[in-house]
């Protein structure tokens, strides 16, 4: 018995006698974690959150959430003698009189940006690989709530210092709240304790920022991790990876060491950013004053799309029966992100209904193999992206020397046309990539060696795709689940009765679009055809003779075409 074993047994006996964990903890240590670079994105968000908790706790030791007006007498000379709130003065104090205070403030702010950025990219990864599918819909929904809460948490957080920029953000927030029909004015007065700015909003935002939302985030993140753990992580397609297994390295020691290293790495990156990239230098903005403003006022990046939506909107307001409907404010504030969040929340269920796929999925899709989903995702990114860029239209206009109004007009069109174009282009690209995959599978990898046949013909030598890559190329399409058939067999067949209603017709069309793809024609799996996938619509007969040739080659040859 080695020393390690003895040590483990001794401690283990003590704990197991009391807690009975040998079986469950061993299962925990042996838990398999699949590996893929994109699985790190969620970890970035998690570790940013932990860093936010640590640095945020430090900041609360010094920050005064108070709007009491005082005259500043601190270290920062340009503001000495200026009247300001205690919140702003204590933020100056953290920056200039607490050793490491500026560093912690900057790490906190950078970590908030990284948290939101990582959430975004993580959500996109989950969307584009189809990792939200059954059984993981709950985690997808939790993710959307986390993102929404993160936006609020960030907005409230950067409003706390009560500098000119953050006060302007609060003013806009108040104006937006006030525009909500019927309840808006009351909501604003209750939140701000009266007319803007009042004397209570900072303490209220403070308790929401340090207690309420972090508590919710912590609970939801715990649930998110628990579900992930319980359901086991998804894996990317590859050799030996199926819906019935998890392939990867065990939690202990591999994943533990890697994820620990990753946490330290993120902390290091945030420390570097905070050392060399100044963020939110509030001493330059001065204390908040409702009649002051600076040009180029920008919110943090995750609020940019909302800001852009406000800027892009038409000046549309109605007065009806003594009441004002400020469409120009509450529509951009609620509708664009409402579409994105509601759409994202409904999407797993819509997709399931539309293509009739009710099975469990543990192997992710490659985005190209779900062209419609990928195209919709790109359309959403374009929609959000145009709004986000428009949120900085004054900066862009100044940098690129484009007239400001022209830019806004471009954005007004682009926000509608951009997503349509993005949808179409993405779909074509996905189908093109599928074609490339099908070609690779059928013909093998080009070697660049040209050989002349006795007949005088030149051919290029190819070699078969290596087994490992082959599995990844084929998986999602040859293992696609059998879907309910909603299209009749032949042109003359009578459509099923349930497909003749309006909903039925929509569903047939949805199935056709949702399962559009290029058949994998290699090595006799045959599943590429006949299960609703590889709908012929994608490859009109005769339009791609080369591809049909491929298919023919693949069908009669056993496996890969000869590499001559």
């Amino acid at each position, binding site marked *: 018995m080695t020393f390690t074993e003895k040590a483990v047994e001794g401690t283990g006996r003590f704990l197991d006698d009391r807690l009975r964990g040998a079986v469950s903890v061993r299962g925990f240590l042996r838990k398999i974690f699949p590996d893929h670079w994109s699985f790190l994105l969620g970890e970035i968000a998690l570790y940013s959150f932990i860093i936010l908790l640590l640095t945020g706790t430090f900041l609360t030791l010094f920050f005064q959430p108070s709007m009491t007006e005082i005259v500043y007498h601190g270290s920062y000379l340009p503001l000495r003698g200026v009247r300001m709130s205690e919140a702003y003065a204590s933020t100056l104090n953290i920056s200039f009189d607490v050793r490491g205070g500026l560093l912690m403030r900057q790490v906190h702010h950078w970590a908030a940006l990284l948290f939101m950025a990582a959430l975004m990219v993580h959500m996109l990864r989950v969307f584009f690989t189809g990792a939200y599918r059954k059984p993981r819909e709950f985690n997808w929904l939790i993710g959307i709530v986390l993102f929404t809460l993160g936006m609020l948490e960030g907005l409230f957080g950067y409003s706390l210092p009560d500098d000119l920029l953050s006060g302007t953000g609060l003013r806009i927030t108040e*104006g937006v709240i006030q525009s909500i029909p019927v309840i808006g004015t009351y909501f604003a007065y209750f939140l701000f304790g009266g007319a803007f700015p009042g004397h209570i909003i900072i303490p209220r935002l403070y308790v929401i920022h340090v207690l309420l939302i972090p508590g919710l985030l912590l609970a939801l993140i715990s649930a998110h991790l628990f579900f992930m753990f319980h359901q086991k992580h998804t894996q990317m397609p590859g050799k030996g990876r199926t819906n019935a297994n998890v392939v990867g390295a065990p939690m202990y020691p591999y994943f533990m060491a890697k994820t620990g290293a990753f946490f330290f790495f993120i902390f290091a990156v945030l*420390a570097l950013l905070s050392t060399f990239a100044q963020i939110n230098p509030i001493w330059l903005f001065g204390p908040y004053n409702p009649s002051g403003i600076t040009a180029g*006022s920008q919110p943090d990046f995750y609020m940019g799309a909302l800001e852009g939506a406000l800027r892009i909107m038409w000046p549309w307001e109605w007065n009806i029966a003594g009441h004002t409907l400020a469409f120009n404010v509450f529509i951009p504030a609620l509708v664009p992100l409402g579409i994105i969040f509601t759409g994202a929340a409904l999407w797993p269920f819509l997709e399931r209904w539309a293509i009739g796929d009710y099975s469990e999925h543990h192997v992710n899709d490659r985005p190209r193999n779900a062209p419609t989903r990928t195209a919709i995702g790109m359309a959403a990114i374009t929609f959000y992206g145009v709004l986000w860029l428009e949120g900085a239209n004054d900066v862009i206009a100044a940098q690129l020397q484009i007239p400001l109004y022209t830019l806004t007009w471009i954005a007004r069109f682009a926000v509608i046309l951009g997503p349509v174009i993005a949808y179409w282009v993405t779909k074509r690209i996905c189908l093109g990539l599928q074609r490339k995959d099908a070609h690779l599978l059928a013909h093998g990898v080009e070697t660049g060696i040209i050989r002349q046949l006795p007949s005088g013909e030149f051919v290029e030598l190819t070699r078969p795709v290596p087994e490992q890559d082959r599995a990844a190329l084929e998986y999602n399409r040859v293992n696609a689940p059998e879907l309910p058939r909603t299209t009749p067999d032949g042109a003359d067949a009578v459509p099923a009765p349930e497909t003749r209603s309006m909903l039925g017709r929509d569903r047939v069309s949805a199935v056709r679009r949702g399962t559009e793809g290029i058949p994998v024609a290699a090595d006799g799996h045959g599943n590429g055809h006949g299960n609703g996938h590889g709908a012929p619509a994608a490859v009109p007969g005769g339009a791609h003779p080369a591809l049909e040739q491929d298919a023919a080659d693949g069908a009669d040859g056993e496996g890969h075409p000869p590499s001559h």
Partner: protein
Amino acid sequence: MSETNGSHRDEPPDEPGPEEPRGPYRVIGTPPPAQARTLLGEAEHISTEPVVRELPAGPDDPKKATGAERIVAALFLLSLLASIAFIAAYVALPVHSLDAVFRSNLALGLTMAIAFGAVAVGAVIWVKVIMPHVELVEPRKPLASTPEARAAFTQTFTEGAEASGFVKRPMLRRTLIAASAGLAIAPLVLLRDMGPLPGTSLRHTVWRKGLRLLVYGPNTPIRPADFAIPGQMITVVPDGYQDNQDALAKAATIIIKFGPGQLVPDTPRTYGTKMNWTVDNIVAYSKICTHVGCPVALYEETTHRILCPCHQSTFDATRGAAVTFGPAARPLPQLPLGVDAEGYLVATHDYYEPVGPSFWERG
């Protein structure tokens, strides 16, 4: 790690040990106690038998691993040194001035980054080179429970519901629901005192007849003659309220001087400047944008356009601040101006319409 390990459990599901008395028999199909106890539900695959070795004890390439060990150890030491340097920087470097703070930030941030980064890099090399490469396969069972388990659950739940009488006794059920609704709604009244009711407060500002306009900043009153160069714009605040943020949030005003004939008068057919509210071609508009309330602080003299820097609502200062571009739907309200006995600019009335962003009761 096989899935058929039910027989290895210390408590076989259907044969309670004869020697020890137990509680109520478990319903068939529910998990055995040992399984139910595992919080994460992961124990099913774990046999309690001794397992075959799954991880190699040594690295893939012992020679490389020895070299890597030195590098990793050096990195860990570097991290320790950086931590010591961090403490030293904290103790040695003062703050209290902009330059000192930046020096301190540089030293603390850099040492902190190295302290974390060196451990991170070291650990990655450790995993990649020293730990042997393994790929294990863990079976994944369908998440759904067996039909028997579900049936048993339904039965248990139904039994509970029946025993409680919740289903059979509608009076109990309905009164409980009513009580819950009361408990949920009653505390909401506690939120009422978070703020006063808006009433008509959004319709008024502190401006009133005879209140002087103070130049914002120096807070001095201003005579039309002091403000005689066309094209100038300044911010003014009501006398006595220059430090009252709540008042300024609505009352902040801009005045602009125009040359003769530049202002376009308001007529019943076209919107324009109310000329009898101006003094010597000086016109006063609310500084609070009618979109969402940012101060409209930018003025372009050549085009007479007032621009809000937040969302680029643009107002034509010669035409009663009518909207020419952007999301704002209404002109900036105009403040009626006059001069008092000493010749200073004063308001002759409050704004005649609510300033700032729209709200439901505005009408």
